[in-house]
Every structure is written in C-alpha cells, then in structure tokens.
C-alpha cells in the first residue's frame, strides 16, 4: 500500500485557500509573520502559539481526543477533533496517527470509521493486537483531552464518485471492517428512527471473524441488514472454518458482477487477489498490518544512488565509508550524535548493547528513524535517506 506523505507547508497566519483575501492583506500577514519570526528567534512563532492552541490554522496537523468508546473487549472507537487545517476525507480512507507511547513517538495508520461528520470530528476504531504497543495504548490508556499528531487522510480504498449501475461486494476480515463501516455509515446514515436509506444500492458484505463477540461493528452491520440496506453474510471461522474463494462464490453467487472491495489480513487478501487477477476482474484491497521487517545479522544499506553490503558486527559508518559513501561522522563511539542519519526502512542493531531499532514504512514518522551510524550495524535490508556521493 502506498502512503502519501504531505509535508507541512510554510507557516501562515491564516488557513490557506477557501476565501481569497485581498493582496494587501496577504502581504501584511506575511510581513507580520516575518516580524514574529524575528522576535521569536531562535524558536519559531509556532512554538509559542502551540502552547495556547495546538489545533490552530497553520499549526502542524494535530488532533485532540474527544471521546474513547469501547467497542469490544479489545477494541475502541476514538473520536478526535482535528486541527483547523484538516482537509477532510472520503469514506474508506485512512489517517496516520502519531502518538507518544512510553515517551516515544509512534505512527500508525487507521481507517476513518465515519464519513465526514457534521460536528467536524473524525473517528478511528482500533483493535488492540497482541504485542501491539501502540494499539494497546490507544485502546486502553488514551484519555480525552490528549493531543495526537495527524497527517492528512489518504488512501484510494474509496467508492467511485458515481454509484449508479454498480453492485458491490465488500469482504471484511477482523478489523478490516473499519474502512468499510466508514463507507456504509456514509451511504446509510443512521438516525434515532433507524437507518435512513437514501440510496437504492445493492451491497453485499461478507464479514469474516473468529466469532461474533470478536467482531467490531457487528451490531451496526446487523442493523443495516435488518433495515434492508445491505445483505450481510457472516463467517465465523472459530466454528465454521476458514473461508476461501470456493466458499465465497457459494455465499455470493453473483460474485463476478460485483465491484469488489476487500480489507483484512495479508493471507486472505493475497488469496483473493490471485483469483481476481486470474479471472481478469478488478479488486480494491486495503491492508494495514504491513509485512514485518525481517531482521538478520548484517544486511545491505541502501543510500540514495548506491547500496552497500554491511556486516552485522561492524558500524554502518565504516562499511559505507569503505564503499566510498561520504558520511557525516564525529566521535565514532556513540556519544556525539554527529553521524545521525534518517533510516526510512529496515533494522539496525546497537553494537554496544545489541538493541534493535526498526523502521517500518508506514509506522515511523515521515522523517524516518534517526540512527547513529557509528554504533549501528545493519540487521536487515536498510534504506537510509542520504546521498551516496
């Protein structure tokens, strides 16, 4: 899956776009900002403004947690008020959320589980996965009022803009239901009177989960089915066994006529993708648990323009220099931080204590994980953002 990284733009006193302001005001606000920068140096005016309003226009994109609602024993929906510069999203898209867990900033992508809402809040639903320090933190420890870091919504797992003439199939497995629920909620708004069916659509949802209590949003899906908005097929693998393409064609006889969306674990998605490719049919997929970084002793280090073989018992700095890469360096013993470079992807081992540092694309900040090359040995295939010459 591709991640769009939107860098924050230069600071502006007012939100860009929307209303076109007269040129003199534009000039004035730029001048005013220039003066503010001169007064605030060496910090930026934003550093002070953030103390008062971290969600203001022009700030780095952040959000404030408004509400945390448990969904199942190990899943919760988190409602977030995004900063003023939030550009909005389409149902089915995801947002990357940066949160400090035990003092360390981590980034994860989560599907937005509502379409754009009137109150301007966005919501994500998180399932605490075993050993998932970020998901566990979000589900069990996050409290309203906490500030989290955001990127703009991204992803092309969205419905076509013109829904007429389409029949849909949505296969969801486990927490893969989250982007689909975002789409369905947008298609079929729910009020106190029940589901408002404002579009006549033919949607079949195949939901796969170990059991009913394990299923996030199962009540939402069931009530949509009761209201006749969707056809719901559930498959509880704990009692009914795994699902494959044969069972799926049995459950959904008109499978080939439907525009298909699937979100879930890699195994299922790969299986479906192979069949759809062979059948020459399109399939939209979304997968969040990315393939884990394989760690090893030694590996390769890819710089911009050159890839270097790096052994597991020597610093990347030495290996890169011997291969002719111009590297920043300093004390060469891990104390001066003069050799720090951003690792975009891969794993390195601290030669002093064997500790692993891992950068997974999508799970680290947009700027990568900074590593000290003088005490780090490659522990896998690494990508470092540094020109080779």
């Amino acid at each position, binding site marked *: 899956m591709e991640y769009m990284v939107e860098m924050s733009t230069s600071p502006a006193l007012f939100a860009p776009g929307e209303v076109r302001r007269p040129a003199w005001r534009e000039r004035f606000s730029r001048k005013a900002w220039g003066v503010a920068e001169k007064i605030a140096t*060496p910090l930026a005016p934003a550093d002070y403004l953030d103390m008062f309003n971290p969600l203001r226009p022009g700030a780095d994109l952040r959000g404030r947690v408004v509400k945390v609602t448990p969904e199942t024993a190990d899943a919760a929906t988190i409602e977030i008020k995004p900063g003023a510069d939030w550009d909005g999203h389409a149902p089915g898209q995801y947002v990357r959320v940066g949160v400090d867990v035990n*003092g*360390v900033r981590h980034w994860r992508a989560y599907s937005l589980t509502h379409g754009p809402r009137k109150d301007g809040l966005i919501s994500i639903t998180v399932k605490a996965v075993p050993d998932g320090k970020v998901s566990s933190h979000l589900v069990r420890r996050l409290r309203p009022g906490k500030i989290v870091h955001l990127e703009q919504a991204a992803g092309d797992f969205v419905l076509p803009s013109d829904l007429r003439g389409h029949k849909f199939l949505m296969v969801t497995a486990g927490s893969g239901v989250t982007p689909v629920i975002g789409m369905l909620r947008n298609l079929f708004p729910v009020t106190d009177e029940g589901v408002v069916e404002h579009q006549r659509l033919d949607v079949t949802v195949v939901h796969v989960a170990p059991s009913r209590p394990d299923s996030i949003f199962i009540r939402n899906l069931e009530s949509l089915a009761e209201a006749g908005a969707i056809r719901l097929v559930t498959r509880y693998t704990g009692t009914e066994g795994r699902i494959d393409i044969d069972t799926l064609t049995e459950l959904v006889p008109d499978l080939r006529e439907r525009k298909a969306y699937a979100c879930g674990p890699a195994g299922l998605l790969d299986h479906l993708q192979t069949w759809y490719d062979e059948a020459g049919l399109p399939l939209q997929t979304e997968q969040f648990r990315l393939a884990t970084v394989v760690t090893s002793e030694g590996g390769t280090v890819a710089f911009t323009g050159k890839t270097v073989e790096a052994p597991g018992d020597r610093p990347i700095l030495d290996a890169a220099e011997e291969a002719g890469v111009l590297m920043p360096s*300093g*004390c060469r013993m891990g104390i001066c*931080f003069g050799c*720090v470079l951003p690792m975009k992807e891969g794993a390195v081992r601290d030669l002093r204590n064997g500790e692993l540092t891992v950068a997974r694309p999508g799970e680290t900040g947009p700027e990568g994980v*900074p590593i000290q090359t003088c005490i780090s040995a490659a522990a896998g295939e690494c990508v470092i953002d540094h020109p080779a010459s």
Partner: protein
Amino acid sequence: MTIAPDAPAYTGPIAHLTRDDIEQLGRELDAIRQEVIDTRGERDAAYIHKVIKVQRSLELGSRAVLLASIFPPAFVVGTVGLSIAKILDNMEIGHNIMHGQWDWMRDPKIHSTVWEWDNASTSEGWKHSHNELHHTYTNIVGKDNDLGWGIMRVDEEQRWTPSSLFQPAMNFINMCIFEYGIAAYDLELGRVIRQKKKGRRPSAEWQMAAKRTVAKIRRQAFKDYVAHPLVSMVTLSGPTTLLANVIANFTRNVWTHSVIMCGHFPEGVETFELKDIPENETRGEWYVRQMLGSANISGSKFLHVMTGNLSHQIEHHIFPDLPSNRYAEIAPKVRALFDKYGLNYHTAPMPQQVASAWHKVVRLSLPNGFLESTNVRNAPKQVVKLVKAVRGDTRTRRRLLKEFEAAGAASVGKAV
C-alpha cells in the same frame, strides 16, 4: 598533572588499578547505563516537556512584564525571569537536547538534529566542538580545546610565557562575553587567524560556518537589543527593556561560564597528555579519563536544574547521552564505583568549586612553583624575579622558571 599508567615510575591516581580492573569498571558502568536505558520512558518524556513548557512560559511572561519595565518592580521581575529563562534554555534544555539525550523520543521537534538555542553560537558549530571534540578528547591537552578554550594555560606541563600573566584578565573578559567567546571558539577563530598570518586562506567550509555564525549573532542581537526594546516603546519602556536584555545575557554568560569552569578546572581534576593516551583507548580507559577529568557541584535540586545538571558533570561525562534528569538518580551508584576502585569523586559546593577553578587559572598564569614559594616576606623579591623572567632573554627566563619550580617543590615538601 598527567596520568600515564604505562610509564615505568608512574604514581598517578590509577596506579593501583590493573588493566582488568579498568575493564571491569567499564563493564559496571555499562550496566548502569543499560539500567537507565531499559527504564527510560514516559516519566522522562514528561520531564523534558515540562521543563520546556516552564522555560517558554517564563520567557513569554518575563517579556510581557518587561513591556512595562519603566516601572522598577516590573524591571526587576522581568530581568530576573528573563535571565532564568535564558539559563534554562542554554543549560537544561539546549545543551542536553543537542547532546542527543532526548533523541530516543523520536519527537522531530525535540531532537539533536534540529534544535537551536538562544545563544550566539550556532547549534551546528557547538555540536561539533563540544560533543565531538570535547566529549571525545576530554581534558587531553592540545586536543580538547575546552581546556582553557585555547587561550589559557591549564596544565603545569604547558609552557609558561609572559603572556600567561594576562590569563586571569582574559578569563574574566571571556566570562562576561561568554556566548561570543563560545561562538569564536566553535569556529576555531584563533587557529584560523594564526593560519591567515602565515598566508593560508580559511577553507570554504569554514567560511560558510562563519557566515552562519554571523547571521545567528545578528538575529540574536536584533531580537534582544532592537525588536523587543522597540515593542516596549509603546509604554516608553524601550531603554529599560534593552537594559534588561543586556543584563539577562550577561547573567547567563557569567553563570554558564562559572558552571563550565566548575566542570573541569577545579584544582585536583586531572588533565592528560596526548602521548599518554593509548592508540586504541578501550571503553574502560575512556571511562576512567572521564571520571578523573570531571568535577561535580553539590547543591539543591534548583541548582542542578539551573546548571543543566552539569552539576553532575562526572555522570554527564561518563554518559553524555543519558537524559539529564537521571544523573542525580545514578550519582550514588557511580560514586560507589569510585569508592570501590579507590578513585577520587571530586565534588563540592558551587562557591568552593568556582574559587578553586579561579585559583588554578591564577596559579597557572604564574610560573610553576611561584605561588607555592611566595609568602608575605619574600613577595617583593619574588615579584622582582618575575619581572626579570618576563623581560629577560630566553636563557634567563628558563633559568628563573627552573628556580621557581625548585623553590615551589621545596616549600610544598616543607609543608608536607
């Protein structure tokens, strides 16, 4: 003083330690480091976030109060607040973030690669000269320019010249303008000027660094001495705001200079000769050099924060990249190791350490043995001799310096 454990007649402070002892000591220090790393987390992150918040609030508050500094109470409160804010920025926040102590948080705003401080020296230049040179070559004469910043004689084995007599005055001036002193020192201005006299042009790299430093100084000066006073003109408080900024920068200069003097200059702190450092210095040997080359300041929690925890200079030099709030916690364990291995843990209250450091500066501004062999009775005779040493030719000077040294050794011997 120097330590040279491999010299045949070596009697220095680690004479009683074997190579194995030193490596074992290194392993025990590694264990202390690992313990901190294993428990580093939310509590530490909360600490630095809080210090930054306090510093920014204090700076904003003080600047706001200074808008009315035409009223004396506002002037006093604002000046004190601004001074403290600048000290916090330089010491507990800037120095430690630029050391990479908080890089583990992966917060792109609180990171050694991006942090800039309220000081004339650029963070980039300072990181090179401080983190890279000073922390690696700690107290090695000729390698570690922090020792006397290249302008002072800080070791008996450095040659005494008549110009050494000026070093107390030089040190005093440096103290008053310390931020510019550091900026010049980070640029190795002295070396570049010497080279220029020999007709060698400074490198393009150096010219870039110099340009950046000049730009930084200009920005800093404009903010403190033009922008804020201008804003204060609304209440006719411009001149008093200007004065407050001058005082705050001066106070910060004197304070940081004093703290840093306490770290490596007090009497009894070891210095080292490059020739005595093994080619492949082991981790244990490096640790020992840090342990003997640093001195602590004892005092209150407030003092520790105001010194950026450089009051735990020993712990900082052993573990420069551990979060500063942990130094106080590990200090008892580190001290226990000093005791176990029979090393001198150099610590004293601030006034005592500052006085001791100045004593060393004055003592070494004079020929070796001069201060030790001078008393009230022979003072006039000694001064006459000193003048002869200054005025005389090289041979006379060499002879007189030898006499001073001998007399000094004799009087120290008598005292013992």
